[in-house]
């Protein structure tokens, strides 16, 4: 299941922008790179920066080729200090720029938390709307690549709890492309959590403006298939699995296995982790009447609790069993050898489904 960054990392995979009405097979890395390229071309106020973003193109090559193409003013390396990177973003935003900083790995967002929570998330509020913070913070996130300590963290529960932030995580190259372009044109701060274990898998990206799931600037979060809400990744009747990031692909796998036993699972890709598309949850579980939420982060006080509670709140009368959570454990993210024991694996998710299906009251 897990791959090292080394094995899957390729070079020179920067692709040229495509014409409209175009579907291409791209990896998420390529889709993100393309989105950034287009955003830089469209808005001269966008600037990309972080550790190794420039010449190297980022340790994951998401910014590959962008400095060469757009210049050192638009795409640049900073000294090695995350609070510096995010604090600087605040000032650039105050000066009218749209910063797209990168934190090199999830775990290195912690040194910048003070600037994220107390400054980025609050400056619009503090200044009564006069100093908007259109900052798109890219964070390669989650585990699954047998990386060193602090390189496999899931910070969504923390970010989602912070008033003033919006949080999104794509699970496919198509969504990665469209959601990043969408996020990078917002007037509010968006934390963009990239599932790093999915950077190198290819999938179709539909560049057509009216492509399903790509209706840009649609602000109706409840409009199924729009950019701002959740996405039904697989329709099903018996049970809803809710996931985001790399867990979506895993849940789809599990759904296929469950189908062999005649269990028809719906998979909801939450996408937006703040605000959460509560109507999509209600709609799906209103139909299936059973739910399992899956995430990599530790159980306690994870975002799964919020999702479960939103479901319980809206579907209490019809729910057949309490919502199950299949998650990482309340332990620090372990070293590569134990990673498959920690991240919800197929068996643990299947057990979760079984518990929900077999639940009997009393």
């Amino acid at each position, binding site marked *: 299941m897990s791959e090292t960054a080394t094995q899957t990392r390729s070079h020179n995979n920067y692709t040229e922008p495509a014409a409209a009405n175009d579907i291409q097979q791209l990896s998420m890395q390529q889709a993100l790179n393309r989105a950034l390229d287009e955003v830089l071309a469209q808005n001269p106020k966008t600037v990309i920066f972080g550790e190794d973003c420039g010449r190297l193109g980022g340790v994951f090559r998401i910014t590959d080729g962008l400095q060469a193409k757009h210049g050192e003013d638009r795409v640049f390396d900073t*000294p090695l200090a995350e609070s510096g990177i995010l604090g*600087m973003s605040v*000032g650039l935003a*105050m000066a009218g720029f749209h910063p797209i900083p990168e934190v090199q790995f999830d775990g290195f967002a912690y040194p910048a938390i003070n600037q994220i929570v107390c400054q980025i998330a609050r400056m619009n509020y503090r200044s*009564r709307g006069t100093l908007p913070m259109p900052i798109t913070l890219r964070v390669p996130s989650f585990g699954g690549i047998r990386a060193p300590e602090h390189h496999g963290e899931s910070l969504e529960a923390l970010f989602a709890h912070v008033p003033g932030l*919006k949080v999104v995580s794509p699970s496919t190259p198509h969504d990665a492309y469209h959601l990043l372009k969408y996020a990078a044109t*917002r007037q*509010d701060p968006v934390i963009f959590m990239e599932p790093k274990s999915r950077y190198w898998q290819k999938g179709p990206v539909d560049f057509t403006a009216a492509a399903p799931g790509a209706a840009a600037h649609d602000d109706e979060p409840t409009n199924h298939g729009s950019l701002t809400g959740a996405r039904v990744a697989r329709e099903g009747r018996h049970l809803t699995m809710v996931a985001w990031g790399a867990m979506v692909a895993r849940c789809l796998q599990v759904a296929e296995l469950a189908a062999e036993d005649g269990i028809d699972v719906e998979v909801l890709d939450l996408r937006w982790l703040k605000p959460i598309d509560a109507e999509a949850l209600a709609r799906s579980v209103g139909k299936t009447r059973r739910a399992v939420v899956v995430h990599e982060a530790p159980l306690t006080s994870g975002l799964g609790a919020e999702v479960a509670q939103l479901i319980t709140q809206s579907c209490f009368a019809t729910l057949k069993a309490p919502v199950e959570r299949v998650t990482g454990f309340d332990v620090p993210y372990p070293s590569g050898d134990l990673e498959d024991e920690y991240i919800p694996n197929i068996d643990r998710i299947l057990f979760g489904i079984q518990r929900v299906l077999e639940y009997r009251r009393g």
Partner: protein
Amino acid sequence: MTTEPVLAAVDDDTAPLTHHQLRELYTLMAAVRHLDTAAVAWQRQGIIPGYAPELGQEAAQVGSGYAVDRAKDFVFPTYREMGVARAMGLDMVGYMSTHKATWHGGMYNPLESRFAPIQAVVAGSVLHAVGWAHGQSLSSRSTDERGVAITYFGDGASSQGDVHEAMNFAAVMKAPVVFFIQNNGWAISVPTERQVAGGSVAARASGYGIPSLQVDGNDVVAVYEATRSALAHCRAGHGPVVIEAMTYRRGPHSTADDPGRYRTLEEERLDAGEDPLERFKQRLLADGVADEAFFAEARRMAEEEEETVRAGIADLGPRPGAEMFSMVFQEPTPALQSQATAWREESEHV
């Protein structure tokens, strides 16, 4: 080890201050002194819940604020820069509203007044100044056009990691930013010698290759001139400057503080030195720049201003609760809007 970095000699405006300007500086200092003293009284009278006095720092604040070009530059204050705000002509009711607990950050318009929202996180906005300054480098290549950021912070704040990151970023990027430290001897109860290893914040600048100026922060003209040359250095594209204005926090840290627990009145008297306002007055008198009538008039105007600000503050009602929700985002979310709706319904149906 390295040769000491020095300020570039940029002579875009090194003319001595005119008599008019000197009198203006005094008028500002008198207004600030009066308003500051009044605010402490307001707190005792229950008009405002708390205040952080800048007593003794008038010269440092007015002198530096007076040097700012309000068409180009941008100021990043802490919670104790009332004198800078006043020198820059801010709406003082808007400024003081933060101490009335009306709105964190204050009710003035930071964009128009070139004065960022009041910052309660120690060292919180030092990096913002660097980012804003780098933005100026990216936008305007011409020397006269370039705005300069000036970030205020204290001796205590200098211990924060963000200050180091900011100085290093600024020096690497040659960002036009002035780090203006008011070393007022104290961070609440902790004296400078237990806070600032090496004894001087300015001394750290050379480690980054940044020129620095340590000035008598109680001499308003010296502060003005240091700030003016630092701004010119930055504007000309020579990168950041550190200014350390040596001054003294004559009052308590805030109206909730009790300095008697950590310093004696005798120590205060010895360490505070000469009152910057009185000292400037004597100088103006000696130089024949102003006479007693002028000082009496300055005092009258300060009193009048205080009355106006007090009335304005007293008139300030609480902000509508709906602003809690509407000010969070530029593009509101339905989830938050429904919280606002629920809040309204529950408030109305009580």
